[in-house]
């Protein structure tokens, strides 16, 4: 029996604990946060109390070192209860970069506060207006100036930059792409984050930094190895994205099944109609398959093995399954799927952020299938 199976009972306990916390907050809480476009303060506070943010942090830095599977169960179950795990996912996963590549001083200074939820570490600023997801071409720069650095950067699609204290910034130095850790407590005034209004509430911003001076203590890992340091966490982040998709799909499927069994039209339950049944059965089949690959990827991660390919498959399959479940839910609910009071509409919008898979497909083509490098 592998570690993941023997831990099944612990994950069940965790699931119940996440579910009761989310149910106590209530679906309308998440609807309000979405409508008002605010940070989910109450969720964040309770998640901190429950110790979720120390999942990837060693006990010596105040975490629980519960590991990737625990993180995955937390974000899945939050979404499966109709919540939105965006902020929780970020806080528990982004600090992984510091865990892997941070200096001892950075770890001691920040990890205990991150684990307690007192220090928010929610944002990675990598993507740029001109280059999108191509992190090898960065216009943002840090130049050496005496014993420190001067940073000029323009970044786009940076989630939660207005709500975070710590921000990981990828810029070019002479050595190549380099990662810096910015602390808004120290450098806040030089960071200008402007919200981008979007279909979905991801607290997305554009970020402008001009002439910010930082010392060597803001460097994360080695200059020139920034992309590598970020990519070390990609497998887990893909699995967490897959877990969020699976959770949201389960929420939509549960709601749709209940509705199909209760709602009568033309004198019969709509669940009797094959036009409703088949999309739901099909979505369920794809969802279960995605879930198996997701746990397969978690097994590799828990064993400390390379999960690059498997995690990419999990994310691709889970986001497809979610899109399919969204369509099935719309067929089941008809116009009600678009009314915000049923919380389906919110999930439909949330699901859109998981649909961008081209880079992952390219990763699978090149690294799993051995096809030539596309770009």
């Amino acid at each position, binding site marked *: 029996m592998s570690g993941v199976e023997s*831990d099944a*009972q*612990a994950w*069940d*306990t*965790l699931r*119940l*604990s996440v579910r*009761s*916390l989310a149910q106590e907050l209530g679906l309308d809480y998440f609807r309000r946060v979405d409508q008002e476009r605010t940070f989910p303060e109450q969720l964040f506070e309770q998640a901190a*109390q*429950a*110790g*979720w943010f*120390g*999942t990837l942090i060693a006990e010596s830095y105040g975490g*629980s*070192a*519960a590991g990737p599977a*625990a993180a995955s169960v*937390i974000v899945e179950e939050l979404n499966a209860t109709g919540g939105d795990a965006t902020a929780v996912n970020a806080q528990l996963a982004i600090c992984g970069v510091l865990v892997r590549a941070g200096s001892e001083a950075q770890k001691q200074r920040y990890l205990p506060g991150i684990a307690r939820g007192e220090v928010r570490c929610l944002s990675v600023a990598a993507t740029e207006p001109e280059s999108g997801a191509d992190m090898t071409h960065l216009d943002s720069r840090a130049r050496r100036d005496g014993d420190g650095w001067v940073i000029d950067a323009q970044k786009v699609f940076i989630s939660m930059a207005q709500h975070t204290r710590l921000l990981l910034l990828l810029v070019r130095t002479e050595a190549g792409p380099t990662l810096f850790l910015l602390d808004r407590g120290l450098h806040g005034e030089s960071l200008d984050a402007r919200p981008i209004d979007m279909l979905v509430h991801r607290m997305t911003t554009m970020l402008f930094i001009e002439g910010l001076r930082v010392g060597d203590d803001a460097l994360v890992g080695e200059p020139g190895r920034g992309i590598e340091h970020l990519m070390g966490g990609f497998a887990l982040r893909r699995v967490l994205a897959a877990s969020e998709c699976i959770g949201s799909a389960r929420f939509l499927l549960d709601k749709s099944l209940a509705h199909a069994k209760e709602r009568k039209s033309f004198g019969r339950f709509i669940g009797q109609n094959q036009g409703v049944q088949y999309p739901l059965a099909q979505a369920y089949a794809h969802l279960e398959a995605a879930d198996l690959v997701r746990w397969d990827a978690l097994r590799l991660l828990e064993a400390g093995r390379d999960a690059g390919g498997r995690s990419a498959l999990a994310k691709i399959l889970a986001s497809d399954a979610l899109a399919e479940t969204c369509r099935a839910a719309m067929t089941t609910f008809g116009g009600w799927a678009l009314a915000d009071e049923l919380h389906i509409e919110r999930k439909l919008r949330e699901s859109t952020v998981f649909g961008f898979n081209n880079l992952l497909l390219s990763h699978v083509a090149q690294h799993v299938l051995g096809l030539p490098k596309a770009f």
Partner: protein
Amino acid sequence: MKILVPVKRVCDPDNANKVKVSADGATVTSDGLEWKPNPFDEYAVEAALRLNENAPKNEKLGETLVCSLGPAEVAQTLRQALAMGADRGILIDATDGQLDTTVVARALKALVDKEKPDLVLMGKQTVDGDSNAVGQTLAEMLGWPMATFAMTVSTNDGGKTLTVGREVDTGVLTLKVTLPAVVTVDLRIVAPAGIKNGATPADHKYNEGARYASLKGIMQAKKKAIDQLKLSELGIDTATSSAYPKFELPPARTGNCVFVETVDDLLGKLRTQAKAI
């Protein structure tokens, strides 16, 4: 003090309206419903943890044991209590059909004889059967003092006695019981000031309600022991003293509203039509 907390799993009480009766009326079916710890038992676990925590150097004042009777899956319910902070679990293997108030009380007595706790702290009743009888029966079998429906518990005389506040119809009745004893708890025991253990600082802020299992607690619970026993190994009489001949759902409400002129008229209708009195 060493505290034994019996915990029962029940069908999700928030969805109790989804419970169905089998076609032949012989059993209640709960297909598709989740199992949850009986809320009053969860409060008892919380109360036990509060009684035993915050000794100097963050040590515990005693062991908190949780036990349950039922099939193997009940281990999950115990694991939840262990994740909240209980120290050890005991699972007595039994099927739901083997259990009634008397058998459960006998099994708990056998367990008390074996484990010798200072206190049995339990929910006042389960929210499925609602019998409200195991605690009282157990205290009688043990010949121990008993305080039911506790809303406050404080320890005195270095943990030799307890002062228990009980919520009764006319106010609060305060009892002093000598340990060992059986105490059953009501909802208010998990109010922030429900428990005073003599060690927790007076300004310690407890939340309202039972604590969540923290992630750290869940990981620690993986390593905690759940001892397995069989009902047949306890050396007790396992014959049930009650039987359920038939279940039926209450008739569906019609929503009809009937107006009456006099109180006598109302009583008459309640007696003859609604059969409520």
